[in-house]
């Protein structure tokens, strides 16, 4: 298939609004992963991520006419809906406290990659878990810029469209968020020298 024959998001949206279920399915498969991961990174909960993904696309089904191409891409629009649902479900601070209380849970195995060296796998998973917990412990306005710009590799302009703020605000929040996150990980690394612990992972992260 030629690239020019691949319908864009807005083409799929038009077809979907005309009742084309396949167009909706194509659009869903194209965008659901990013929306799910955004909600997962923001909430730390696969259940919440699943619910948010469903709600985002239910919103699209119910009122697709609200999307205005002049205000940004469809992807940004979907991220914006997801963000609203995440914030609505959990509030600003409630759920990250809950997650901090939940530190004995198993680390996520989604997307885990088999390595030949199990010790390297263990160390790597500990680092990932330490960073994941650090991100979840950030205040919401810092967490969302880290998730969008660093984890989803979104540029400042698109992130500003999702968050509904100025580009400079995104940049300054990201700088502050990264500084806070690095300080948290550094403090954790300095406080407990035990290598197998989470802070040991933080130490490796900031080694």
């Amino acid at each position, binding site marked *: 298939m030629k690239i020019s024959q691949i319908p864009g998001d807005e083409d799929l949206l038009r077809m979907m609004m005309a009742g084309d279920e396949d167009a909706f399915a194509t659009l869903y498969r194209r965008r659901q992963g990013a929306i799910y991961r955004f909600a997962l990174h923001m909430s730390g909960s696969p259940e919440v991520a699943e619910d948010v993904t469903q709600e985002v696309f239910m919103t699209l089904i119910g009122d697709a006419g609200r999307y205005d191409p002049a205000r940004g891409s469809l992807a940004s629009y979907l991220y914006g809906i997801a963000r609203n649902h995440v914030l609505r479900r959990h509030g600003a601070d409630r759920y990250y406290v809950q997650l901090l209380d939940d530190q004995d849970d198993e680390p996520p195995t989604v997307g885990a990659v088999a390595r030949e060296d199990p010790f390297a796998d263990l160390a790597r998973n500990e680092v990932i878990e330490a960073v994941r917990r650090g991100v979840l412990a950030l205040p919401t306005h810092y967490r969302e810029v880290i998730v969008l*710009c660093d984890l989803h590799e979104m540029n400042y302009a698109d992130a500003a469209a999702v968050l509904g703020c100025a580009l400079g605000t995104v940049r300054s929040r990201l700088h502050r968020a990264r500084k806070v996150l690095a300080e948290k990980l550094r403090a954790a690394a300095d406080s407990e020298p035990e290598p197998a612990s989470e802070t040991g992972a933080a130490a490796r992260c900031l080694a």
Partner: protein
Amino acid sequence: MNCKRFEIAAIELARDPSVELEEQARAHRQSCPECAAALADQRSLTSGLRALNWNTRSASAPPRVEVELRAAFRKAATISPVTSWTPAPAKFRFRLAFAAAAVVMIAAAAFYVRERFANPAPPASPTEAVVQDGSRSDVEPPLGDKGKDQNVFPAQTLSSGGAHSKASHRAGHPRENGTRFENSEVGMDFVPVIYGSDLTPLEGGQILRVRLSRSALASLGLPVNVEHPDETLMADVMLGEDGLARSIRLIDSKGESPQD
């Protein structure tokens, strides 16, 4: 370069490792161990975030979500199929709703008058007497007390839609085509409501007083100020025997121009 500037640069550098340190930044890093450590921390953080991203790169919603969404899509498409994508601005939809409401009001008024028209009463007002003559010029109300009433709108001022209105009529300009009503109400000229060329000649009719929004009046060609489109004004609608509105005019009961 000072520590503050280096800190800002360090984060951008850490996010994009392909960018090399400028000469000034490199010199500052060598002279400031704290900033060198901060840059190292930021680079390590970037590595950690990329590892987290890579670790969850294949995470996605379970297949049942798609199944449920497709079912919801089919249901929604059955209930209210959308055939085109024309998102209209809210302001436009608001005005459209007002215009539709105005049309419904006029139609209801026409129906009401048509029901009552079986027993037409002798015209009590000069205006109604003129209507029964049938000609276009007769549609215009007769002249009242010329030059005596300072509360009467000069007809040409209103119909031209110009800016001057209060000043001229309050200065006592001679009235040409206005009708004075009871309670200091003032009517301007009738403006024909155009449907097409297949209307029956106007041989008789009735006048119905209604209140319509400014936007509806403007859509009928009356010179009103539409800055407050939902505000209503009093108007006379002249109805033919067939029940259709033939012309309309504004009634001013406050002594103010509807263009204000």
